[in-house]
């Protein structure tokens, strides 16, 4: 069904200083200022955030479901791409 509402915006909240902004959800809004206010009212009204980003949803380039095979499956059997794969030599301090 076509979305008859205002344009969609993705909302990112930063839960604390120095932490990454994380995707919280989306809001409808006519423009950036209204998107910011709606994001504040919907996702930050209970003190969940110290900073907000809003991004027009159509500005996000997303991977297609059909890309999942070539994009992600090859990573599953290559344990050596994780640093934990390698043994730490004796004498190296582990933090």
């Amino acid at each position: 069904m076509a979305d008859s509402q205002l344009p969609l915006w993705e909302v990112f909240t930063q839960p604390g200083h120095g932490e990454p902004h994380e995707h919280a959800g989306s809001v409808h809004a006519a423009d950036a200022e209204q998107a910011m206010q709606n994001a504040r009212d919907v996702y930050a009204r209970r003190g969940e955030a110290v900073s907000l980003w809003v991004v027009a949803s159509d500005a996000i380039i997303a991977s297609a479901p059909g890309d999942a095979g070539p994009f992600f499956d090859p990573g599953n059997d290559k344990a050596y791409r994780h640093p934990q794969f390698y043994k730490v030599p004796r004498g190296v301090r582990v933090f």
Partner: protein
Amino acid sequence: MTAPSVAGKREEIIANPLFEYLLRLGDDRLVLGHRMSEWCGHGPILEEDIAMANIALDLVGQGSALLKLAGETEGAGRDEDALAYFRSEPEFRNAQMLELPKGDFAFTMVRQFLFDAFSVLQWDALATCTFAPLAGIAAKALKEDRYHLRHSSDWMLRMGDGTEESHARAQKALNHLWRFTGELFESDAVDAAVHAQGIVVDLAAIQSRWQQTVFDVVGRATLAVPPAGATSSGGRRGRHTESLGHMLAEMQIVARSHPGAKW
């Protein structure tokens, strides 16, 4: 003393000016907050519905804090619930503008804007008063109301400079509300008495700054400031429009039907 009975009555009314002053502040927020809460579940879109519920909760919270403090000041054992739910219409001290029915979205938002622009200035002055409990409430409420003003100013611009219909509705609301705005800046013996207690709010200065904000936003919204004319007031002395009684009946019925109930 042979003071005329009118003067005697007047003295009786302001026997406790601080209590009276706090009622005025608290009733403004409680009544406007209740009117705003009537939008809950009826907002134009989900996001705005949540925004209006947030604003309503902020205002009711401010009203609650102020009425609690008023009750303590009165010293007669009345708490914020007693003052909110067990006073009748003539005992309410809110400005008349705030009790008018919520109307359409334009009416609600124009009223909110006119009050927000006033309220931030009032809190700004009260945040530095020497009556510490009130200064504390003011500092917290100032932050809330600055956001309310940002939200309502934004809607003024959107409606005024929006479609033909939104412009017409916003202008109609502004015209209707204009005569009620003067009451916000009226001062009387209560203001003079609390001035002596360290609560100094220069309403003339606030009015001039309020006009700057309102004229600026109304102008940018391509709306017209209505001409000065007759003003309607009396709320500070318990004279209200017919709307308040209906509103209180709904607001108070649960508390009055089940006095002392806890939930």
